[in-house]
């Protein structure tokens, strides 16, 4: 135990940086993914067929491909197209596209669960469609989409560990570097696991707290 505590003290800054980058990458992905997912969900339910089809294809392609393949594709493909992305940017791109598809699908479910009478009522009292969306449909959809949305956040924190494979210096890669130096394999993998666990449990509890607030109208 003593050598482990010494090593963890020596490696505290790299590990802290890695943990921060994990949180940053996951937050960026959930942010972009939520924007993308809301657009996607709205188009899937209310868009005309010509727009619905490409969004449907996007959602199905993203949901049928492993996250690791998305990450590797986002890392290798843009450079061929002449766009230079850093490994971190490529990782955020892949995770955002992944999150966008999942959030799109859960927004679609949430929007479809709202009785159609509500949209009709909103139209009949003279609200335009954007107003109906903003004041009637989205507030309800967001509330019922909250639990699966938190799940997607947990998936993203977990998925960000895959970025270590393309060399993004997040928590897992920093941990592997420390293990390469110290050979304390079990200790540091367990430590990294505990950090992921803590971050996810915190997110989970945060979600539950928000849920209680929005439910207790």
């Amino acid at each position, binding site marked *: 135990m003593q050598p482990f505590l010494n090593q963890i003290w020596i490696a505290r800054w790299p590990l802290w940086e890695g943990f921060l980058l994990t949180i940053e990458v996951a937050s960026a992905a959930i942010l972009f993914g939520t924007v993308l997912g809301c657009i996607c969900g709205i188009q899937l339910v209310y868009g005309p067929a010509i727009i619905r089809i490409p969004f449907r294809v996007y959602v*199905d*392609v993203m*949901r*049928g*491909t*492993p*996250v*690791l*393949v*998305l990450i*590797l*594709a986002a890392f*290798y*493909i843009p*450079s*061929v*197209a*002449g766009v230079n992305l850093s490994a971190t940017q490529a990782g955020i791109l892949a995770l955002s596209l992944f999150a966008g598809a999942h959030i799109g699908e859960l927004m679609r479910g949430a929007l479809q669960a709202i009785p159609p009478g509500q949209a009709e009522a909103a139209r009949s009292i003279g609200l335009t469609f954007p107003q109906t969306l903003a004041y009637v449909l989205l507030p309800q959809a967001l509330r019922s989409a909250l639990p699966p949305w938190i799940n997607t956040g*947990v998936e993203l*924190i*977990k*998925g*960000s*560990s*895959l970025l*270590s*494979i393309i060399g993004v210096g997040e928590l*897992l890669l920093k941990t*592997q570097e420390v*293990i390469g130096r110290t050979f304390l*394999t*079990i200790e540091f*993998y*367990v430590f*990294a*696991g505990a950090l*992921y*666990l803590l971050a*996810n*449990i915190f997110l*989970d509890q945060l979600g539950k707290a928000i849920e209680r607030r929005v439910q207790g109208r």
Partner: protein
Amino acid sequence: MGYSLQFGAVWASFGNLLSGLALGLGLAVAAVACGTLIGLVAAFASVSSSRIARVLVGGYVMLIRNLPLLVLVLLVYFALPQLGIRFDKYESFIGALALYAGAYLTEVFRAGLVAVPKGVVEASRAIGLTWVQTNVWVVAPIMMRNALPSMGNTFIGMFKDSSIAAAIAVPELTFQARKINVDTFRVVETWLVASGLYIATCFAIAALLRRLERLFPKF
């Protein structure tokens, strides 16, 4: 720009991709089979009257669901040997994926168990079936029917997660695609073909599962 797609190099190694795909499916089947056993035991434990069993199952599910699979895989493959427990890379990966699938399937089966109407259990007890007989002949079939769609989803998820085996050099589809990528530099083509294979397989599994569901009567 000015990149022209040339699939020749990828088609030349298409056989490797297909064998990688088969290996990935095999890993997923093995893991889900073991995970189903874990999940069944854990689900029945989580609805049992034993407080200790419930707490243990709750801890297992919470722990595994919040850990990245890659960390779990690396732990099993690189850390367990330090404790004198050695598995080869296939066994390590199947073990890690089975633990992972087990946690998700525990939730799936638990939801299936909770959805079994109470009256059914009472009725079978009333006609003289023992607790074991009730669970095996009455509760389990209804639970399985309830759980089937989610089990299918879990299987598709585990098939996609089999890509993570590439990290410990198990030659499944992603590993083969990376190899072609590095050997030939046909970057776009390789990932298009690999993604296409994954998507096509996921769709095929989903279609198969829908047919399977229709074979079972609804309750």
